[in-house]
């Protein structure tokens, strides 16, 4: 261990190198490429298939349970695939393989951060959520607390997370499609926004689930093929693959060792906490647990999802190294700099994020390149559809049905409100995507995770696990977590310096979770403890009923299959 002074000095010196990576894989600035007709044809096939599914889902969806939870009839394996499809974004596929391409080992650190939240979701949240809830995580958080206040807080947490996540996805989508298909930015985000409205408004959770399942299969299948082709070239010896990469890469043996990414342990741990506990507070992920019939299936979902996501990250690691060995020796994948010298790290055609796409061309030819491009597009659609459905449900089920109409609303009307909300969210997403085209949005995914970890997760966890939680405590603590997370991000380098052009950041770390999570938990605890109202006593007393149901599932909303 170093002395604190040394550690602080190293924090300051490496902070600048660290920031760009810590906020999330970013697609950055891209150049529009020539129109890729093979990719467009494959993508249209995918869209046609998903629209048929949406049409059939729309005809079969009648009740609110069909719309929000696919009738509760999704199996554990299907839900595991859908969760993986909801979680593996295009940015993680292209961004992490590009990170491995440029820095080797550091890409692995990133993947691990995104994976380790899943076991915690399983151990602490998944089955209790299934036992207590119906359609949204607010159902669970407000189980024995005040419906109006807790649902307003949960819906706010949901909409804020969805908004930041969606902006990052829309901007990424626009740039990626520009790059892969040669379509203009605005067309790209209109296509993405339009399709997600169709999936969600007509097909609800059933269509969204199947879009996610198909996308997960395509992405895992395509990535598996690429990894196998790479490994086959080295007679399935990872050591031979790594040895060749070390031979070719400018970083040489340093490729296999930690680089600049975790030079600042406080930022790294803070990001790690945000990723770990944020996963357990992402509204579109939590919603998926209501689509299965019982706690047993909810557990299996997470087991399968963790397996698929872990496998996917191992594939991206092999793909990154494959890109080094296949692309670096071939000058045709690079553009020479002004001095005529080819920089193998930064000179890639279309930018380094194209590493996986170029590798697809190198191992599978132009048809496989088209396939992988279409899969990347499909990947974006699956992620934004899940986000839109969860935002729309927060508006209709939490805000409209419970807060505004106070439960006096018909199922049909509630579902219609949800469909209208999906359309509105889609239109707003297109507008935001257009507005933020040239802004730095890389920090927004990190911010979405930080808010999920500092508002949604503490409120959910404390209301399920701690008897003493009261409405006042949950609302004050959750609100403090939300506000502190957003404030610290605004004062951090990503916004304060990069967007508002101030000289130095007021908040010195990249991610607020290490500080905003304790603020939320301590806030909930302190305020609940000091709450001596009659309502607080009733809420504490109501814990037993909730506890029995959360632990055993007795009285839980069953499967809704007709």
């Amino acid at each position, binding site marked *: *261990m*170093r002395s604190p002074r040394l550690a602080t000095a190293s924090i300051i010196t490496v902070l600048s190198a660290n920031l760009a990576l810590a906020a999330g894989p970013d697609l950055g600035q891209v150049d529009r490429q020539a129109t890729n007709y093979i990719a467009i044809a494959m993508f249209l096939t995918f869209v046609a298939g998903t629209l048929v599914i949406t049409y059939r889902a729309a005809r079969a969806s009648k009740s609110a349970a069909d719309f929000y939870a696919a009738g509760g009839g999704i199996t554990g394996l299907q839900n595991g695939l859908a969760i993986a499809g909801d979680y593996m974004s295009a940015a993680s596929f292209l961004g992490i393989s590009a990170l491995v391409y440029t820095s080797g*080992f550091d890409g*692995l*650190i990133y*993947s*691990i951060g995104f*994976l*380790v939240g*899943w*076991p*915690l979701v*399983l*151990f*602490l949240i998944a*089955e209790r959520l299934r036992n207590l809830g119906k359609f949204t995580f607010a159902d669970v958080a407000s189980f024995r607390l005040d419906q109006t206040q807790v649902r307003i807080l949960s819906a706010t947490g949901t909409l804020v997370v969805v908004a930041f996540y969606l902006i990052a996805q829309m901007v990424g989508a626009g740039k990626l499609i520009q790059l892969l298909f040669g379509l203009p930015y605005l067309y790209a985000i209109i296509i993405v926004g339009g399709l997600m409205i169709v999936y969600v408004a007509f097909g609800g959770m059933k269509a969204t689930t199947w879009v996610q399942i198909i996308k997960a299969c395509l992405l895992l299948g395509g990535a598996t093929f690429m990894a196998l082709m790479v490994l086959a070239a080295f007679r399935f010896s*990872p*050591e031979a693959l*790594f*040895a060749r990469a*070390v031979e070719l890469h400018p970083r040489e*043996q*340093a490729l*296999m*060792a*930690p680089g600049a*990414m*975790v*030079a*600042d*342990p406080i930022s*790294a*741990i803070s990001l*790690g906490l945000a990723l*770990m506990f944020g996963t357990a507070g992402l509204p579109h992920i939590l919603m998926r647990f209501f689509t299965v019939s019982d*706690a*047993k299936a909810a*557990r*299996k979902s*997470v*087991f399968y999802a*963790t*397996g698929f996501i*872990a496998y996917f*990250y*191992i594939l991206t690691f092999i793909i990154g190294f494959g890109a080094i060995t296949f692309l670096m020796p071939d000058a045709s994948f690079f553009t020479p700099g002004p001095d005529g010298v080819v920089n193998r790290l930064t000179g890639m055609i279309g930018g380094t994020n194209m590493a996986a796409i170029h590798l697809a061309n190198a191992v599978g030819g132009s048809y496989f390149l088209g396939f992988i491009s279409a899969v990347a597009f499909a990947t974006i659609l699956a992620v934004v559809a899940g986000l839109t459905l969860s935002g729309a449900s927060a508006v209709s089920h939490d805000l409209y049905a419970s807060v505004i109409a106070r439960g006096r609303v018909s199922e049909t009307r509630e579902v219609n409100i949800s469909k209208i909300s999906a359309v509105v969210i889609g239109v707003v997403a297109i507008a935001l995507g257009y507005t933020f085209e040239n802004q730095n949005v890389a920090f927004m995914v990190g911010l979405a995770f930080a808010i999920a970890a500092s508002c949604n997760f503490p409120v959910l966890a404390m209301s399920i696990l701690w008897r003493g939680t009261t409405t006042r405590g949950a609302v004050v603590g959750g609100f403090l977590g939300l506000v502190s997370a957003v404030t610290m991000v605004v004062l951090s380098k990503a916004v304060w310096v990069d967007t508002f052009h101030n000289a130095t950041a007021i908040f010195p770390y990249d991610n607020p979770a290490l500080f905003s999570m304790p603020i939320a938990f301590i806030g909930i605890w302190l305020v609940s403890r000091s709450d001596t109202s009659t309502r607080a*006593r009733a809420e*504490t*007393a109501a814990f*037993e*009923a909730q506890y*029995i*149901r959360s*632990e*055993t*599932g*007795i*009285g839980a909303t069953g499967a809704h299959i007709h």
Partner: protein
Amino acid sequence: MLDVQRLNPWHERVLGNLKFQQLVRERSGFAWTLSAVMLLVYCGFILLVAFAKNTMATRIGTGVTSVGIVIGLAVIVTAFLLTGLYVARANTQFDKLTEGLKRDFDEGSNR
């Protein structure tokens, strides 16, 4: 004591049931232990990356593969195995206890 007096008799019977107490005790213990293992493994990995760069960069044998790569992949595999371990026990042992409880209490539930 006020809270206990407010309980209805059905809740009191479930809470006092030995099967219920065994289920909750064993499952919570198991879940929190596994959560702690996952947290320790992950934080340990980050600290190794931050403070033991040379150890992580050490080559294995005569090859180029480093200790860090093997540890990193081991963390990924551990995360998956821990979920498998939990599901294997929960879907058999814990669910059997839950089924027994449900048979005893589901009918006549007056929550």
